[in-house]
């Protein structure tokens, strides 16, 4: 059971990659990429977890309480922001592709026009 979060992360990474590879719709490609990225959340949070640890907010808990690692949580926050920005940019590019090529199938984007 101890390995379950990391196994789930590896599975998310590979299944997201499969989504990217097998995609026939660019929006699906982009969403699959977010599945790949969500595996990093699991790894980061899994690494920083301490058994029985509390959330690193010391407002209402005893000062000697065991806390989970806050550093990886901040990294996950950064990760989420980056994912949101990448998602927005990629979706804007999908709209561009649709206007240029009239299709959102990655297979139709092979030819560069002018």
């Amino acid at each position: 059971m101890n390995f379950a979060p990391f196994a789930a992360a590896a599975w998310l990474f590979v299944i997201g990659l499969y989504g990217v590879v097998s995609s026939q719709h660019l929006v699906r490609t982009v969403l699959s990429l977010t599945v790949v990225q969500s595996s990093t959340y699991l790894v980061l949070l899994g690494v920083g977890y301490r058994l029985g640890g509390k959330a690193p907010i010391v407002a209402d808990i005893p000062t000697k309480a065991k806390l989970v690692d806050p550093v990886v949580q901040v990294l996950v926050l950064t990760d989420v922001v980056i994912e949101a920005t990448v998602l927005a940019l990629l979706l804007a590019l999908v709209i561009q592709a649709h206007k240029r090529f009239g299709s959102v199938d990655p297979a139709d984007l092979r030819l560069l026009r002018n």
Partner: protein
Amino acid sequence: MSRRVRLLLFACGGPGLLAVLLIGLHGLPAFGDFHGAYGLVVDHVEPGQRRATDIVTALNFDLRAFDTLGEEFILFASVSGVALLLRHLRDEDEEVESSRSVADHRFAGASDALRVLSLVLIPLLVSLGVYLALHGALTPGGGFQAGVVLAAGPLAILLAGRYLALKRVAPEWMLEAGDAAGATAYALIGLGGLIFAAVYLKNFLPLGTSGHLLSAGMMPLNSIAVGLEVAGAFLLTWTEFLDQDLLVTREEL
């Protein structure tokens, strides 16, 4: 490369990648058995020396304040990129836009129940967003989370009424100004550190009492600045995409 070839290649490489990932991750310390020293030090330093009780926010706006500056500019650059990509297209279709009336563009498929509920949600979302931004250093929250919640408030106007009502409440110039002002404010707070504490982004404000609203030095200010930027950035992105939808629907008419 056709889809068939791609899938075939993945069938060869995918399981191998999964195996390598699993072996690699197996080398990590067991789940729940973490011994990183840095986090433990932070757990002591931030509540003690900065009087912050939310250590995640404290890390974000104090120890990793410089990284947050970069993160903010990434968000800023990406929103500029989205606006650049989509507005170029809008110019292309300007004739279409001017020829049709945009008086009644409602969110398709919104039932009356959804409209009423959204109306109730707007003040709640905005006040929750403001609360999260102000209490970033005390309880779970902080600028980034607050910005997203704040941005969801005006978005509920779209669900409750018309898209144009959203545009009237949150016109593009205001969103752009909020986005830019938030990013600038954060950089200027850092400059304050340079002037008054000799180090960029170092805390230079009184720390106050732990647990009070005005405590933890410059963290509440940073939190507000980031909240403003994120709210502006998200709303601007959504507006750009919704504008595209408006264009596409009208072309199909």
